[in-house]
């Protein structure tokens, strides 16, 4: 909780400076401090001060997002080809993908990554699986999902993921 408050404070300060841009006017800086404390009080009243509100991704996340961006670009090519070709040969499919992440944050990262990659959309999250709608049947290969799941768990440094892998191996 204390850690979340400190990180939220820093994030909000950076956000205010990005928006404001008036560093040389002390009155605006004072108002910024007041505003940040009002927002902190509101989030405290709403009980949203926890590690989900401020997902500190340990710097690993940057690598994950670079990888994700490459994946998005690759998937986009496939979807564009399918959509713009005159025959438009598509084969919509629905599959179930297992989720191995233990925290909600890891699961959300994984599901949002699936949705961000065009051609696959996370439709619904059941107990430990995601229902995925895919535009092309070849986009539902399990190996791709497993790699994305592993990487998403690694990006949020999921404690359960290592345990499962050790147990399996």
């Amino acid at each position, binding site marked *: 909780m204390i850690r979340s408050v400190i990180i939220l404070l820093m994030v909000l300060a950076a956000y205010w400076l990005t928006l404001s841009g008036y560093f040389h006017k002390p009155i605006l800086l004072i108002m910024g401090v007041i505003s940040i404390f009002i927002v902190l009080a509101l989030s405290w009243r709403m009980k949203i001060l926890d590690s989900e509100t401020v997902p500190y991704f340990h710097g690993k996340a940057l690598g994950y997002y670079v990888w994700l961006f490459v994946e998005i670009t690759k998937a986009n090519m496939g979807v564009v080809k399918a*959509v713009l070709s005159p*025959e438009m040969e598509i084969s919509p499919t629905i599959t179930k993908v297992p989720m191995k992440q233990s925290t909600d944050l890891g699961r959300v990262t994984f599901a949002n990554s699936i949705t961000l990659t065009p*051609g696959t959309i996370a439709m619904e999250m059941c107990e430990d699986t995601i229902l995925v709608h895919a535009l092309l049947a070849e986009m539902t290969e399990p190996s791709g999902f497993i790699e994305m799941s592993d990487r998403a768990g690694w990006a949020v440094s999921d404690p359960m993921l290592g345990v499962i892998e050790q147990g399996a191996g």
Partner: protein
Amino acid sequence: MNGDLLHILQFVISAVLMAGGIFFVIAGAVGVLRLPDFYTRMHAAGMTDTLGAEMILLGLIVQAGLSQTSLKLALIAFLLFLTSPTATHAVIGAAHHAGLKPKLGKYRALAPGEEPLAKSKAKAQAKSKVKSARKSRAKKRVK
């Protein structure tokens, strides 16, 4: 001289990024119009929201250089990155929950000028025959 080169480089990078973004945005819009059912249209819309938007914003960031505007543009890119998949997930989840049936299996669009499949053609002919028969019967009755 050096400054000129930098400006040209800036223009070229920004132009390439924005042209790519525009391509994906237009392709997504065309896809939303062309694709057969709601679930597949969602994919085309997602294409616009992810790569198209991010590429246009990157191009604008390159144009703006190191300034406050580019920081704000990066903030917009981050917010779109966060909200667009969530909104997509919410829309498709709501449609699925409401019982909208997805079209599954292989689908192929008709080429321009191509007639529908033979079966449906035969059906349509049969229907029109029935209709004309009904009409003639009705006419007879009137007479």
